[in-house]
């Protein structure tokens, strides 16, 4: 991966974002800036709006109020802006969402060919590079159903990387995995972080947060309640909701 050029402007800006699902107020006055190369861990209790927040960044959800700018592109609801943003934003889901009727390799070459206009040879070369990188190159000809959960999630990461995105969004990428497979996916993400990828991760893996995150953002009820460096946040959370939340997480682990 080429190092991100040093640019001062933030890669992602959310300003005064409000989002409703019908009557339900899911995001309340959210302000976030993500600098280029920064790694952010987003946490909070279930239903606090973490998924909603990151899904707004690539417009899987539309917002009713506020401004979202990604890599200088202002996300109005125009198809052009949405497409442009999605080309630069990779996303990894809790449930992998690989295309089951395609091989691992085809999963990885589809978007680069259709969206970036690569020919098949170029797309396959890119795909093999990233599949190697997530250490799953030898599985390229298999179908997703033939792989373990951890392998599938690593393919999903490779598939997103094949678009050479400027930022990767992760929505609880290890929550659906058997415990013994969590590590291989986290290690892949740590490797990605080391290589300088900008990342926004929803995760409750506090070890990962300590090791990788530049900043931890804590949400509850659609609001950002606390933002701090991981050490500060874990040692000395300020907000009572954050303390309760951390208490519950630690009790679980």
């Amino acid at each position, binding site marked *: 991966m080429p190092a991100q050029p040093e640019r001062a402007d933030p890669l992602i800006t959310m300003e005064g974002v409000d989002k409703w699902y019908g009557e339900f107020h899911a995001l309340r006055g959210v302000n976030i800036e993500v600098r280029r190369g920064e790694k952010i861990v987003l946490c909070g209790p279930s239903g606090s709006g973490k998924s909603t927040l990151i899904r707004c960044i690539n417009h899987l959800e539309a917002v009713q109020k506020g401004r979202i700018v990604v890599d200088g592109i202002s996300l109005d609801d125009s198809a052009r802006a949405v497409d442009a943003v999605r080309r630069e934003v990779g996303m990894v*889901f809790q449930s992998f969402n690989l295309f*089951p009727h395609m091989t691992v390799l085809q999963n990885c070459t589809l978007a680069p060919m259709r969206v970036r206009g690569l020919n098949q040879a170029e797309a396959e070369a890119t795909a093999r590079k990233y599949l190697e990188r997530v250490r799953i190159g030898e599985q390229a000809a298999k179908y997703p159903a033939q792989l373990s959960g951890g392998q599938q999630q690593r393919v999903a990461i490779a598939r*997103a990387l094949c*678009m050479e995105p400027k930022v990767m969004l992760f929505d609880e990428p290890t929550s659906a995995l058997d415990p013994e497979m969590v590590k291989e996916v986290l290690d892949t993400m740590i490797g990605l972080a080391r290589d300088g990828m900008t990342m926004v991760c929803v995760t409750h893996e506090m070890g990962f947060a300590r090791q990788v995150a530049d900043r931890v953002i804590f949400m509850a009820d659609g609001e950002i309640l606390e933002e701090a460096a991981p050490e500060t946040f874990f040692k000395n959370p300020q907000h009572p909701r954050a303390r309760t939340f951390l208490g519950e997480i630690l009790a679980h682990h």
Partner: protein
Amino acid sequence: MGAPEFLFLLQGLKWTVLLSAIGFVGGGIVGLLVALARTSGQPLLERGTAAYIALFQGTPLLMQLFVVYYGLALVGLELESWQAVAIGFTANSSAFLGDIWRGSIEAVPKGQTEAAKALSLSYVSRMRDVILPQAIQISLPATVGFLVQLIKGTSLASIVGFTELARAGNIVSNQTFKPLLVYAVIGVMYFALCWPLSLLGSWLERRIAAPTR
């Protein structure tokens, strides 16, 4: 019943097969558009196609054929009987296939669309590369089942004077005064068309129900 009568029945069989093919291909093409419109997320398109489906599913095919053949003639559009029948069957099949395929498109997990969108794939690519291949697989048993219904339903074409298998049988039976024999032969012919398809349908169903791909 001699060779000429039998050949006449075979002529009828040929038209039954052709009519089924027209209904299936025409209905398939229009039905795909109906299914796509029905799942487009555009309220106007969705409501329009919902009404279209309800109309053709909620009225007898017999009536639809009458309307196309005699109704259009009343407003000055004189159609050959085969044209009327082709239009009638296409419209009717498109409503049923459109509804079957709408259900199959909706049965593809939402995460597939989301992953495709997150990869910046266009609507056309999302449908062609990701959703439809999975939806078609899901829809195969019901689609084949519908094809069997369609083949049997072509007998209704006789009411607008179209000589397909059932009507050919009627004619031969009136000439030969051997209705039992004639209808037995016709029954065997329909069976020979539909039975393999029914088998194919249940085979596909079992294959899809199997846990691994």
